[in-house]
């Protein structure tokens, strides 16, 4: 997940809408040769095979690398019986609830801030340096301060995730606003739109594809902040589960937790792309 992508002007919406495709790889479905998807499938199978083989041959101690089968079994056991007083589903729900609460907060603050940056130079003067300051700080660095200020309760955890999400949302919104075609704005003004109506009826909908891209990047950033947010005084959550397991060297739960986090991230990414297709079907077709 690169952070450089949302500081650019979204001149090529279709490329931005698909962050996985690189500009130089043509999306033509009729291309000859092997498909990227097939190569990906083979890659995953090879990694799994190496993993299984090295576990089987005991190249590495099971304490460090449990076999895929052991991890799968653990998945079943934790899903059914739980680990540290909660089932896998309860851990996942706790984590998801935090990330979504943080996402709502990041949208409520980040979208207006991004609009202010994109629309007015005063707004840009105020918020740009703040965001540029906040953006590169790793969550683990500000976690202690957040705890000192807001305690060890749920709000602190949500805040840590929300801070990580704020910059992507705001900067994507701002770049979307800056990318709005001047002709469209002029057309609206000549049809009698006031400044406020231009913002509401032209700028916000025009920036929507870019805003959604920001949400997608933010969800990734927030999800990867999860473990840090659940470092202190959590009793539930996937990050908490991994850390508890690590303290007792229950490596199979650690690996299983990592895979579950990865799987959920994958599903979220997929879901947002679906939402993009429904909400902004015009993106890349103009």
């Amino acid at each position, binding site marked *: 997940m690169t952070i450089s992508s949302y500081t650019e002007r979204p001149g090529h919406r279709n490329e931005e809408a698909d962050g996985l495709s690189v500009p130089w790889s043509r999306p033509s479905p009729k291309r000859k040769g092997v498909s990227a998807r097939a190569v990906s499938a083979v890659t995953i199978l090879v990694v799994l095979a190496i993993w299984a083989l090295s576990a089987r041959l005991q190249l590495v101690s099971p304490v460090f690398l449990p076999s895929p089968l052991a991890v799968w079994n653990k998945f079943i056991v934790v899903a059914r019986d739980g680990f540290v007083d909660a089932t896998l589903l309860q851990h996942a729900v706790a984590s998801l609830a935090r990330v979504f609460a943080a996402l709502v907060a990041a949208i409520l603050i980040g979208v207006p801030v991004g609009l202010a940056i994109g629309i007015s130079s005063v707004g840009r003067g105020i918020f740009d340096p703040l965001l540029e300051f906040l953006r590169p700080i790793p969550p683990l660095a500000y976690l202690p301060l957040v705890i000192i200020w807001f305690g060890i309760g749920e709000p602190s955890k949500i805040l840590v995730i929300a801070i990580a999400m704020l910059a992507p949302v705001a900067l994507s919104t701002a770049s979307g606003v800056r990318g709005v*075609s001047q*002709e*469209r704005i*002029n*057309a*609206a*003004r*000549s*049809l*009698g*739109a*006031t400044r406020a*109506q231009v913002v509401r*009826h*032209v700028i916000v*909908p025009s920036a*929507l594809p870019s805003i959604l891209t920001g949400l997608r990047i933010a969800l990734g950033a927030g999800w990867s902040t999860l473990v840090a947010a659940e470092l202190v005084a959590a009793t539930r959550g996937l990050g908490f589960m991994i850390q508890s397991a690590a303290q007792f060297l229950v490596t199979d739960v650690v690996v299983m937790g990592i895979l579950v986090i990865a799987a959920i991230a994958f599903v979220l990414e997929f879901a947002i792309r679906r939402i993009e297709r429904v909400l*902004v*079907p*015009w993106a890349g*077709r*103009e």
Partner: protein
Amino acid sequence: MPHLVLDKVSIHYDGQAAPAVERVSIDVAKGDFVVLVGRSGCGKTSLLNVAAGLVVPARGHATINGRPITAPGSDRAVVFQNDALFPWLSARENVAFALRLRGVRPAERARRADALLALVKLTDAGDKRIWELSGGMRQRVGLARALAAEPEFQLLDEPLGALDALTRERMQTTLLDLWTASDVGVLMVTHGIEEALVLATRIVVLAPGPGRVVQTFEPGFSRRYASGEAIRTIKADPAFAAARGELTDAIFEGEVA
């Protein structure tokens, strides 16, 4: 009588040594179809933008019905070369945009938008998405959207420039039909010599460096169309060919290359 007047307008862009346009006067009355033609760099689009209120002239005055033009307004609807439609709205909602800004009720909005879509021969396209429409259809939606504001003047910035030759021909008659039906004053910029002759009641030829008026024609072919003559008969008239020669000479007069 509504009047759109540019009086000795000079346009000077920031950071450029020479003015883009110097002392150009254009007068558009209601019912006029004034077309600006000229080689690139003669400032025709800049002049249109002054009339639209998007560019402020360095010297001279732009007025509409005697009031100075300081900002865009719905009394002067602009249609751009790239239609500038809103892709998140259907064709009907695009046409109804000006009405929505004014708080017209949805049912009334839809009714009037459908009437305008019928006027530009897009009766069944109301529910279509913008990207489902061809270039010519999109430009028709753009024209209907501009008419919905019930402007006194229409400012057309190369509205047919992005269309293929055949669609262009057909759109010329559409423009004439709209003009005769709605009785607005039109100020249009084009590159097309034949297009200017077919459409204009008055052609203003501009030359670059800096942009200035070199000649004015009153071709009168559009009046003949308005009084019922077929467009093909008009174009086949030897007078049309003669006028085309004259206009071409005026446009390229003094050009070195």
